[in-house]
């Protein structure tokens, strides 16, 4: 992952330097260069120290048998932790649940988010109200929203549970619980998706859409043939961010079901192995595997779908 992201940078830097030529740098350019590096240095040092070093350490930990109850007995075991995780039904169950939640919630969010974006873009009045309302789920702490949903669906306490047939406890059934987790996730993150799509929508030239209208295109035709293709970059960025975010789902599941009845995600599995089973070796192996999954998703989006890395615009010359 590190190599795939740094390759363009590494290959870009020498050409820039080569074009200018080291000797040809004016005093001002040298000063600018020094200032640039100086200003970035603290941020870079923090980011490397807090992510690169720990992930390397996690790889090291994952190759050991390391039980926190017996820290003195830690020893090198090679890949056996990975073997243990990858042959365990718990990992595959959690991965399946995570993928299911990710795919369904991102798909629903894309459709709902697009609808919300169109509402905000085209509303004749109340645009400000809608935009404000939509920001509320974004601002609310995930855990708070999750508790609200949890109480709403708990039989006896909740108004939503009261609407269900008597005797049903949706949070204790695997499929219903997964559905409710997706609902909570969609509620919380659709606004973010909608705002990203709205910004993409604003970049679609109004004349092009009007031209299609003059040519007699219906609303659906305009959306499918004109607006969506022009929005493809914005949609891909929004999908990339939300997919990676959904894959890391933790808070909602922790509060809603605690991962019981096979509703745990891979993050919940990793957490449980670390803090309930106190197994640092297995927990680290899961951590590394999740990192690899995320890297694979990002790779697919960027290399195969061609999602442009945000902020990665060409340098000004």
């Amino acid at each position, binding site marked *: 992952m590190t190599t795939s992201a740094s390759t363009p940078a590494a290959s870009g830097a020498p050409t820039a330097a080569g074009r200018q030529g080291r000797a040809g740098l004016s005093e001002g350019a040298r000063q600018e260069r020094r200032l*640039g590096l100086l200003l*970035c240095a603290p941020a870079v040092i923090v980011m490397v120290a*807090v992510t690169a070093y720990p992930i390397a350490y996690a790889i090291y*930990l994952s190759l050991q048998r390391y039980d926190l109850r017996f820290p003195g007995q830690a020893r090198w075991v090679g890949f056996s932790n990975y073997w243990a995780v990858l042959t365990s039904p718990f990992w595959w169950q959690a991965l399946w649940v995570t993928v299911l939640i990710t795919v369904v919630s991102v798909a629903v969010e894309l459709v709902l988010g697009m609808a919300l974006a169109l509402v905000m873009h085209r509303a004749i009045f109340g645009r400000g109200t809608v935009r404000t309302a939509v920001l509320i789920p974004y601002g609310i702490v995930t855990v708070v929203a999750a508790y609200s949903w949890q109480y709403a669906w708990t039989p006896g306490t909740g108004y939503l549970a009261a609407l269900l047939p008597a005797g049903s406890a949706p949070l204790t059934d695997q499929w219903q619980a997964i559905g409710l987790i997706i609902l909570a996730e969609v509620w919380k993150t659709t606004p973010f998706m909608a705002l990203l799509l709205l910004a993409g929508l604003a970049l679609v030239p109004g004349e092009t859409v009007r031209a299609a209208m003059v040519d007699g295109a219906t609303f659906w035709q305009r959306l499918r043939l004109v607006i969506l293709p022009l929005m493809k970059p914005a949609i891909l960025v929004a999908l990339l961010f939300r997919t*990676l975010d959904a894959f890391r789902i*933790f808070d909602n599941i922790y509060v809603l079901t605690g991962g019981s009845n096979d509703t745990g995600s891979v993050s919940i599995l990793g957490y449980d192995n670390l803090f309930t089973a106190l197994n640092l070796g297995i927990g680290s192996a899961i951590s590394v595997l999740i990192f690899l999954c995320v890297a694979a998703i990002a790779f697919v989006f960027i290399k195969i779908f061609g999602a442009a890395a945000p902020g990665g615009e060409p340098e000004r010359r």
Partner: protein
Amino acid sequence: MMSHRNRTLTGWGVVNVLVVLYALFPVWWIVALSFKDPSTLSDGNFVPRKWTWENYHGIFQTSEFTRALINSIGIAVIATTIAVVLGTMAAYAVARLRFPGKRLLIGMSLLIAMFPPISLVSPLFNIERVLGIFDTWVGLIIPYMTFSLPLAIYTLSAFFREIPWDLEKAAKVDGATPWQAFRLVIAPLAAPGVFTTGILVFIFCWNDFLFAISLTSTTAARTVPAAIAFFTGSSQFQQPTGSIAAAAVVITVPIVIFVLLFQRRIVAGLTAGAVKG
């Protein structure tokens, strides 16, 4: 013609109301719960039958919640300040200066924005115990500022590109060094963008749950979202529902006010980093 117009207006009215209901539904429910009397807490009524402040009194009487609130505010403010300062420096360089390694910085920020936090929990847990910063403010500030740095850098560099840079040139013509131009001319112009980024980063830190429950073990550094999950009822037969609801409302209100006051800026900030690239 008139009726068509009326229908359109009604249509948009309905859509607007639906969106507002969508956004407020769970919020109203937790507010309603927090005002319910313990005897009616589990009646499932949408509106409290008997309104009471008792749940709020309850949580402010124990140090469990007040301590967590202080932790949440302190940790989020410090982490936000550091992330915004470091982010401002880096974003200025990204938006304005020509130097090698700029794309490396952008690539790295992107990588960290995508990083799964759970992957860092196990190593950080061990590292922090060795360093003695486990269950301290520092132990949470470090991951928070790191994970919010990409957000800060993206948002700020997008804002910085909008600034009228001719003023900087004018300052340079007048003999200012790049550093002086940054400090005296650009920094005041950049203040609104920096402020917006501060709000976004604060919301990010305020929201975290995974690090908060993993890297703390006592009330010394436990933030409110984590503390809520450990709430117990005042007796073993009582569910902490009322306390959780009240605590949840307390940490929600300031953010909702912020969001309502600065909604234009927040929308601009959220979308700036991701789309203008």
